[in-house]
């Protein structure tokens, strides 16, 4: 029951970027822009095609996506079960929530030097940053979702003799589903941004490393290809998750205050 794409909305959304690119191209061609840091869109496009052709674009993107997938999966496996346990034990929340609120204030990038010292510059520190970045939104939203489960529904589960495990699977998780999903979406977009930062600092492979590479080579067009790739991939990830949300939670459609 996925909605058909409304083309007029797509058109409206695309109008502004297209106009911007158009103006940018014109001003660049007229020589108003410094090509050292603002190359013309056509030049960026050309570089993009070249990078696709020589494979460097895909290599970096795949490296980043692979890290994202691993890191995010690990986070989900840690944060969701932990969130369910903590969400059910209310008293436990008093013990840990101040600590969590404190940790949440620290941006993942602040930990990168420590992670590098502890874990080297290859995959481990990047995965660690991703986990750190995604953990809090996923965990906190799961806790929130589970602890706000309607006790009346839990009682129905009890009256119908659900085992503790079925209770979690059939009452807590679906109840908390919307909240968990919000956490996953936030977590994933946090992941993606934190990963780019981590890659920029460790400068090995990936889309973030490509940005520094562009700077080192004094090729701003390569930087722009990377930057745009980051934005577009982030957008696509979010769209996919939104679609999944509607697929898995068809009952959510009519919730008041829910746009779309």
């Amino acid at each position: 029951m996925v909605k058909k794409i409304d083309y007029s909305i797509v058109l409206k959304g695309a109008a502004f970027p297209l106009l911007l690119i158009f103006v940018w191209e014109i001003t660049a061609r007229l020589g108003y822009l410094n090509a050292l840091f603002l190359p013309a869109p056509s030049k960026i496009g050309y570089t993009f095609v070249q990078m696709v052709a020589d494979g460097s674009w895909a290599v970096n993107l795949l490296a980043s996506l692979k890290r994202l997938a691993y890191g995010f999966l690990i986070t989900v496996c840690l944060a969701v079960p932990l969130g369910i346990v903590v969400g059910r034990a209310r008293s436990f929340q008093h013990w840990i929530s101040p600590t969590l609120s404190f940790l949440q204030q620290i941006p993942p990038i602040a930990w990168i030097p420590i992670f590098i010292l502890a874990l080297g510059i290859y995959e481990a520190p990047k995965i660690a940053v991703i986990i750190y970045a995604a953990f809090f939104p996923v965990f906190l939203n799961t806790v929130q979702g589970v602890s706000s489960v309607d006790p009346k529904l839990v009682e129905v589960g009890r009256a119908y003799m659900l085992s503790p495990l079925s209770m979690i699977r059939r009452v807590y998780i679906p109840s908390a589903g919307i909240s968990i999903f919000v956490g996953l979406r936030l977590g994933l977009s946090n992941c993606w941004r934190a990963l780019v930062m981590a890659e920029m600092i460790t400068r090995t492979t990936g889309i973030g490393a490509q940005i520094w590479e562009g700077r080192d080579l004094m090729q701003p067009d390569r930087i722009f290809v990377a930057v745009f790739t980051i934005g577009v991939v982030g957008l696509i990830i979010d769209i996919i998750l939104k679609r999944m949300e509607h697929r898995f939670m068809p009952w959510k459609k009519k919730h008041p205050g829910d746009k779309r």
Partner: protein
Amino acid sequence: MSTIANNSQKNSNQEMLIQVNNISKIFTSNWGKVQALQNLSFSCNRGEFVTIVGPSGCGKTTLLRIIAGLERQTTGEVLFNGSKVLGPGHDRAVVFQEPRLFPWLTVEQNIAFGIRDSRNKQKVKYLTDKSLDLVGLKDFRQAYPHELSGGMAQRVAIGRALAFEPAALLLDEPFSSLDVSTRARLQGELLELWHKTAKTIILVTHNITEALVLSQKTIIMSPAPGSVKEVLAIDLPYPREQNSPAFQEKKEYIHKNISYKH
């Protein structure tokens, strides 16, 4: 031969299913203690339709929840089929005052919620279809709770209880939030369902007419702390004729006996 069959049927009809023995319930909260029930006893036979009436706050819900095993009595005991009630069981299904449906499940899935052997697809389908049929919601099996009216939602709740295959249905004012005509229709449906399934039913209500229309026996409770004021047998034939003198007489009798004053 036929007399024996008759006898055994009679015996099974007389068999005591639920025994509430001298229960009291005291709630302790931050601001003090509330005695909700005091030395309350009654019993209910297999296949019997019993209603519990009483003024608001007299402990009807508490009593039903204790029978359901969702609440522990302070003293006394509840016997179900001869054994002590220590918690919820497969032999009892509750229909709460609100439908309490799971918003993420369709009508059909909500009804199938309590089915024991949920891996046995055939059994699930059979019981779900049967329940859907009994509560008249075949055409709405794919609907979600937010797409249902209040009466339909309550019917789903009843269907969910039926699919659980309990010996007894425990209903807590299931129709109290419905308008008069929907209420009358659902009362009729519940009676029909009782005739078809021969389930034991205990229904809580504060509506005297509802008690008289539905039950064979009504437990009249006194105001808080709740205890049994009177057990009244309603030996009128079904369907109950509300304008008949006998009906009116009973109604007046209960009105006189049930004190709404605190």
